[in-house]
């Protein structure tokens, strides 16, 4: 590996980390302002113009807060757990392409850090590592409530990982590649995958919400009824790290959804001016983040048994059927079959939820 390539990698990685961490800070501001608008409030508007310095004030507050470690906690793991949650949240974006190739001073710079041919499985593997932070955080606190919270959270994450992985398969089959860059190129030629596999994209979005512990699947952080969860004993900066992981992951996962189903950096005139690529990417992430905030404002939290039943009895069979439909459509060379049949499957899934809820209501 020559030195220039090495430094190119380092600089790209540093820029990405900087963008993600600043993005995390301003995502909290975006969410609070967005939620406030939806609930006809004002939201944070004191610190700086229009409250723009609020994230800075929050950071300063959290850094200077007293950090408290329970006497009976397993110290090493207690410190390790928040780190293990944050690192995968940042690492997961390594294979996401942010644009085509730029020409900077006669040097071709591709806007992706790791252009590997197993990019999609890499995302799966990093996502599966993220469970450790939650489970270990709950255990290391040596507190029954946080332990139960950690178990609950990790059971949820492991369950929804199945639907997540299977919706990856649909995208991979349609694009015929596991390289994220080639996935985007395939979508530039053959149309965005959300058009070919609309239900798959929705299943993926729902599964990522559960994986992120976002509302309405925010059981791990149910402050009101379940005394939070794995993070009860955490305070100060360590507590902030858990939230940093959640918000950073929101950005990373939005980037992944955009790449897999919404054409990545694809958009009008992107082939002539590659600088537009990152801009389209940010725009798509911004819209997806708004969807996440909107969902949080609109839906109540799911009950835990319903949440697990939804994951195992609805999402998993549905995503299996979607994989089957996609593979059949490709094998028969009838691409138009895929969106039609998957919409039918999605409709059946929604109907079955509707019927089972109605049956329960009648039984009462």
């Amino acid at each position, binding site marked *: 590996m020559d030195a220039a390539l090495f430094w190119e990698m380092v600089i790209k990685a540093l820029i990405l980390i900087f963008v993600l961490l600043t993005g995390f800070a301003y995502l909290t501001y975006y969410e609070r302002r967005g939620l406030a608008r939806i609930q006809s409030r004002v939201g944070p508007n004191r610190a700086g113009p229009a409250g723009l310095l609020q994230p800075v004030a929050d950071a300063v507050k959290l850094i200077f807060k007293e950090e408290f470690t329970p006497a009976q906690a397993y110290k090493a793991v207690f410190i390790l757990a928040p780190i293990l949650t944050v690192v995968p949240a940042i690492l997961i974006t390594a294979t996401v392409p942010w644009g085509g190739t730029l020409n900077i001073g006669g040097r071709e710079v591709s806007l992706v850090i790791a252009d590997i041919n197993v990019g999609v499985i890499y995302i799966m*593997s990093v996502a599966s590592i993220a469970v450790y932070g939650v489970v270990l955080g709950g255990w290391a606190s040596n507190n029954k409530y946080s*332990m139960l919270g950690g178990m609950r959270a990790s059971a949820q994450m492991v369950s929804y990982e199945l639907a997540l992985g299977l919706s990856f398969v649909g995208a991979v089959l349609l694009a015929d590649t596991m390289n994220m860059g080639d996935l985007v190129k395939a979508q530039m030629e053959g149309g965005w995958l959300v058009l070919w596999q609309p239900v798959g994209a929705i299943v993926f979005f729902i599964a990522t919400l559960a994986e992120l512990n976002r509302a309405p699947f925010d059981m791990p952080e149910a402050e009101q009824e379940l005394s939070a969860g794995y993070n009860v004993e955490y305070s100060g900066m360590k507590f902030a790290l858990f939230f940093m992981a959640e918000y950073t992951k929101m950005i990373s996962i939005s980037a992944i959804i955009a790449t897999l189903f919404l054409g990545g950096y694809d958009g009008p005139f992107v082939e002539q001016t590659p600088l537009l690529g990152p801009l389209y990417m940010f725009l798509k992430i911004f819209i997806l983040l708004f969807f996440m905030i909107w969902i949080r404002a609109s839906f109540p939290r799911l009950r835990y048994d319903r949440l697990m039943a939804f994951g195992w009895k609805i999402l998993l069979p549905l995503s299996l059927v979607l994989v089957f439909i996609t593979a059949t459509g490709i094998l028969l060379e009838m691409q138009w079959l895929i969106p039609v049949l998957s919409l039918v499957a999605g409709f059946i899934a929604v109907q079955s939820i509707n019927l089972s809820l109605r049956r329960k209501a009648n039984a009462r």
Partner: protein
Amino acid sequence: MTVNLVLFLILATVAVISALGMLLSRNTVYSALFLVLNFATVAVFYLLLGAPFIAITQVTVYAGAIMVLFIFVIMLLGADPLPEGNTLPWQKWLAVGLAVILAVEGTFLISTQKAAGIISSPAADAGNPKLIGQLLFSEYVLPFEATSILLLVAMVGAIVLTSRKKGEER
């Protein structure tokens, strides 16, 4: 020294230390965590050998799925530290005997240069997931399906053992 050799030496140290930590730790959760570290190091070994697909599968399957379930079970059963002292007195001698056999075998292989040939020339396309998939579903389809049936049997067995008949007390 090449970069690869330096990387290999660092990784080998981490791998050996994490393996020792897993064996010697008295706390089962720490043992499990050392094992996760060991799996991750082995995954990086695969990367060094030019097999990213196997490396990432190693992380997903072992570190991401199997060990999470291990830690689950350990925590559910209570992660009390093991008591001091040996429970199986003959175990130590058996372990020493097996270790000696392994050491002799390893020395024999290295001295006859049979192992070196395997490591120094990884297949050029070992990292291509498409080729691996094609091989898995053509040449190795029988072992692949046999494994899937084995896993299915285990799954059905677990469900049968844990399920209760209707009306039965918990």
